[in-house]
């Protein structure tokens, strides 16, 4: 991390036994790792687990003291493969990434790891990016756990529970020779809470011990016949061991069993939502003392058959609260109950939504329906929460008060001053001349191009796969090329080989734009190979152009200032209309403005304080020459370029205006020129601590211009009333 410091968080990691630790969920996990004697940590950044990586990245002193190796893995596959260190050695290791996208990438290594099994505890911390605020396809990590036989923990969204599950996860992994996946939902990662800390622990068996005493055992390698033995071992040895450990340690919880002849089974991660629902229905207090028996699955895979049967057999019915689809747990429970001939009715997705996030409203509705069927006397009809209050009962507070079209969607977009926006402005202008192209997009901030006002980009197939996503579009019947985008993050993650190498080898014709903003920006501004910043712990400044030339691309243009819209447009045109065949690469290079500002704002403030001459630029629009057509906004989309009520009383439409948040990136001016827009744009340069020369020039100019302006005013006399 070049431009952000996590020193405050790092200090929290030093908290010792008995002290209270207050902070975010994902930071608690970081602390829990240090407390559990972990030897190595890797991962790939992405919401919601970036913070774990960022903090450890700044914590190298602590890590060195404890003998822990930490690295920013090149991809999730790299991270998962890192867990190989726990196969032969009693080393505890943890890796982290966003799921399911990261788990997709990691699944090759994860499958190999789970087949051979582990000796040391292997923990995969996945940030389950599901539901509101998610930026990825809606799938479940559960499937990966099932397919490779990795145990899946789903702790309550509570810091103590999360921290405990890190320790339990390592022990479960060691007890059953199986990797364990710790699933943390978005909100659990960002939750603020507290827990009582323990001392950090230096592992008793260290990396040094392993490196100096290498071990080998073909029985742990995925190659016949060992691979066939692994499958048997998984079912006959590791599974029972896991079940035993989970039961003995009572990881799953049963609350108030026997209170009713019906009950609720739930995923640990949904515990707080279910308790809130019960509380609002008058069936629990705020401390979780539920009137309804609960069976809480803090481990959602494997299902412990005995526990399920024990909970269900004394009841008429149970409701399963399982978020996401397919309904793996529901199917599993049906099979368990059927095999054991338990007649208890099982409800799940028929009372709760079959897909989508389980918000309190959904859970309240589902539980209400269930209770109405099996214990209606428990519900006070006059004190129901609003979401299940019958209409007409009393003034319903949830009636619609505003039409949906009055509340526009507000998707994320390029920041003010973003150097990526001008790339799309230029492409839009180039397409006015070359016609529209099929455009394959990638993952990263640049994907915001698919939204208005640019509407550029047809598909996105995954991180670094922008170029690969265009690979089918090769035809000798047309000269028209397709365009693909890729970010620098995706490029180093895999795009260099999956996209560029592939295009070179297959002699594909087409243009790939690599957006090089010097950071893995969308995930929080982490450094990558081509970053421009000095980083004492990592090797940076490896140019993308050198990499693509090295892999065999001949046509490469690096633009070092993306704000030059005309130059960008001409480069697009020459790539799209030229006669050169084969892959063409434009490296569009300008630093991420969010990170640049993190560095430059304080530096500028310091210079001003020191009395040095500082020039700050920003743009403006003359409202009296703006005709309110908003063409500028449609090729720009900057948050600081917006509309305002027209100060001209005769005009009805709002004028374009530039807010004070403008950072003076220059796109407005460049776009006004490149698109031949209008003469309303101007740039102001405010000079703080001006030199004597500045002041002298100002004096002369003010005198002459002031004189001429007096003349202008004289000639206008007689139009406005005398003041």
């Amino acid at each position, binding site marked *: 991390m070049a431009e952000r410091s996590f020193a405050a968080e790092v200090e929290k990691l030093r908290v010792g036994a008995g002290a209270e630790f*207050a902070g975010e969920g994902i930071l608690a996990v970081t602390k829990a790792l240090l407390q559990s004697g972990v030897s190595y940590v890797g991962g790939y950044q992405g919401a919601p687990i970036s913070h774990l990586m960022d903090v450890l990245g700044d914590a190298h002193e602590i890590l060195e003291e404890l003998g822990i190796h930490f690295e920013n893995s090149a991809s999730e596959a790299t991270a998962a493969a890192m867990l190989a260190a726990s196969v032969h050695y009693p080393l505890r290791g943890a890796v982290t990434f966003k799921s399911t996208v990261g788990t997709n990438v990691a699944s090759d290594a994860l499958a190999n790891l789970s087949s051979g099994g582990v000796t040391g505890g292997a923990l995969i911390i996945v940030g389950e990016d599901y539901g509101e605020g998610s930026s990825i396809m809606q799938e479940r990590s559960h499937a990966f756990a099932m397919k490779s036989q990795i145990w899946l923990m789903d702790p309550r*969204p509570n810091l103590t529970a999360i921290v405990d599950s890190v320790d339990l996860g390592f022990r479960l992994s060691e007890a059953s020779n199986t990797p364990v996946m710790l699933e943390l939902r978005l909100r659990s990662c960002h939750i603020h809470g507290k827990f009582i800390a323990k001392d950090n622990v230096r592992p008793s068996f260290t990396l040094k011990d392993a490196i100096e005493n290498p071990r080998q055992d073909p029985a742990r390698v995925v190659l016949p016949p060992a691979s066939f033995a692994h499958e048997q071992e998984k079912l006959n040895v590791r599974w029972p061991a896991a079940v035993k450990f989970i039961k003995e340690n009572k990881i799953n919880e049963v609350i108030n069993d026997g209170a009713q002849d019906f009950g609720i089974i739930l995923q640990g991660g949904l515990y707080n939502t279910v308790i809130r629902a019960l*509380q609002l229905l008058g069936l629990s207090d705020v401390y979780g003392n539920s009137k309804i028996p609960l069976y809480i699955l803090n481990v959602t895979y494997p299902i412990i058959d005995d526990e399920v049967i024990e909970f269900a057999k004394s009841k008429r019915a149970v409701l399963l609260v399982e978020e996401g689809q397919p309904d793996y747990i529901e199917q599993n429970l049906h099979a368990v109950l059927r095999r054991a001939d338990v007649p208890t009715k099982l409800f799940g997705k028929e009372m709760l939504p079959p897909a989508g996030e389980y918000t309190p409203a959904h859970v309240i509705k589902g539980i209400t329906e269930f209770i109405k069927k099996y214990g209606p006397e428990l519900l006070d009809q006059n004190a129901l929460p609003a*979401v299940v209050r019958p209409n007409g009962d009393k003034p319903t507070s*949830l009636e619609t008060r505003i039409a949906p079209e009055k509340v526009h969607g*507000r998707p994320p977009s390029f920041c003010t001053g973003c150097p990526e926006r001008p790339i799309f402005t230029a492409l839009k202008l180039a397409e006015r001349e070359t016609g529209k192209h099929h455009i394959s997009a990638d993952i990263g901030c640049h994907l915001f191009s698919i939204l208005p006002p640019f509407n550029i980009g047809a598909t996105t197939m995954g991180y670094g796969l922008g170029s690969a996503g265009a690979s089918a579009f090769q035809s000798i019947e047309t000269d028209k090329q397709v365009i693909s985008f890729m970010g620098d993050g995706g490029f180093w993650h895999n795009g260099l080989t999956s996209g560029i190498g592939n295009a070179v080898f297959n002699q594909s014709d087409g243009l790939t734009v690599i957006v090089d903003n010097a950071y893995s920006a969308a995930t929080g501004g982490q450094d990558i190979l081509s970053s421009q910043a000095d980083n004492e712990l990592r090797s940076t400044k490896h140019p993308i152009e050198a990499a693509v030339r090295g892999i065999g691309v001949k046509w490469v243009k690096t633009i070092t200032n993306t704000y030059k819209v005309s130059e960008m447009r001409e480069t697009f045109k020459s790539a799209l209309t030229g006669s050169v065949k084969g892959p063409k690469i434009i490296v569009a290079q300008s630093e991420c403005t969010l990170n640049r500002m993190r560095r430059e704002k304080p530096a500028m403030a310091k210079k001003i304080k020191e009395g040095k001459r500082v020039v700050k630029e920003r743009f403006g629009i003359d409202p009296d020459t703006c005709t309110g057509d908003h063409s500028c906004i449609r090729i720009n989309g900057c948050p600081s370029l917006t*509309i305002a009520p027209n100060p001209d009383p005769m005009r009805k439409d709002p004028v374009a205006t530039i807010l004070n948040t403008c950072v003076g990136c220059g796109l407005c001016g460049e776009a006004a020129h490149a698109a031949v827009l209008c003469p309303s744009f101007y740039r102001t340069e405010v000079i*703080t601590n001006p030199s004597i020369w500045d002041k002298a020039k100002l004096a002369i100019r003010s005198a002459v211009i002031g004189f001429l302006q007096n003349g202008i005013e004289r000639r206008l006399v007689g139009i406005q009333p005398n003041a």
Partner: protein
Amino acid sequence: MLNQSRPITMAVLAMGGEGGGVLADWCIDIAEHSGYWAQTTSVPGVAQRTGATIYYLEFFADDQSNKEPILSTMPTPGEVDIVIASELMEAGRAVFRGFVTPETTTFIASTNRVYSMTEKTAMGDGRVSSEELLSACEAAAKKFISGDFAEVADKSGTVISASLFGALAGSGALPFSKDQFASAIERSGVGVKNSLIAFEKSFEIAQNSLKPKPNPVSISIGAKPADAPTANLGLTPAQELEILNNPNGAVGSKLQGLASRIKSDYPSAVTLMTISGIKRTADYQDADYAKVYLDRLEAVKECDSVFGDGTYRTLNEVARYTALWMTYEDTIRVADLKTRRTRFNRVNDEARVGDNQIMQVREFLHPMAEEIADTLPTFLGGWIIKTKPVTNFINKLTINGMRLHTTSLHGYFLLYILARLKFIRRRSLRFNLEQERIDQWLTKILAVMPENYDLAYEIAESANVIKGYGDTHKNGWRNFTSLMSEVDKLRESKDSTAATRISTLRSAALSDETGEKLRALL
């Protein structure tokens, strides 16, 4: 019997980069310092980049049992005690999502608007009415506190989280004292002084808005809706009345005669618009030009008085668009406006030039051969347009545009001299073209009004599709001609829905750049 105590619940709707997280952290800080259990969660995801985001907090009084309460990570519609929205459409979103309910919610909303992309990219006025949003918010809340907290923050030199925090303190919705709130800001240690100023001001706004009001207070939120009747010239009712009573007082000596004409000959419904019109045209060229303007309206006035519905709405719009059309933006006008003292002062204010600071201004101009030809005398301009090599030569010279340093002597002189070319305007290529077009448009209005008053009104309004510079202006003119030929067709077929049809087409013409939607409807 179960313990019935419930946590206090609070949702904060903000946009990325507004400090919603800071606000949440302050709240957690006070709560924990006051012996409460407190929890916050958020789903920032990619929303840190200007997208909408929600922070959700719960507070629970420690009942000395020291048992940890189970707090929810998500708001439940109908059960949210406090909702804070950092912007008016976000406030609307809170209402839409059912977080704000009349039985439960103290609702704090900032009335400033951060326009959505849909509102911003419209060719005309795509804004959602602030009044509508505001009244929905007011109706939905138990207690409603509103104010422009963004402006308060801006004036105090801080960000909106500080002023919203002040409003929260002032609302009394959380069981903490003002001092407790303020000390959370102090403990955070960043920008404390300015944050406290914004905190104080907003605290007061909140307290005042909770006081019982003898009369409903109208809340000023900037723009009036675009479709408001009459002139809607952004004047206060008192100012409007003054002009209506004494039009002559609103103009200078050169326009006294025209103002008297307006007073005696014109209906008061159009006084405000016509007074603005004569001032605008005189400012653009001279008093004679203002006379030409008023003469143009004469026939429309007569016609409207016979065939109109008494509102003179067509005349009013004709008065508006004739003035705007007659003062089309040529290079002379642009140079004129850019060199004025009022403009210099405005730019200075906007750049917030302080002590020991100097400001310079650079214009981004891009004159093309056509615009230069437009300004030249008809014969010369016409020759340039017709002679391709000359056009190409000029365009080649200007292709990269020019950045003119207006606050330098040479830059200012250049614009100043250009502005002084007013005297050749009457003989210029564009001037004659536009006068011709205006008269054709007026002729059509006059011809249509006796047969279909509403259609005549629509023709008047259609002038609004012509706007912008360069290609945008060309597209606008093309759309306008399409509309006018549709008018002709509708007149021939004596279509009774003609006015509605043109109104629909007019909106379509303003919905995109290329005229695609308009073509689809035609």
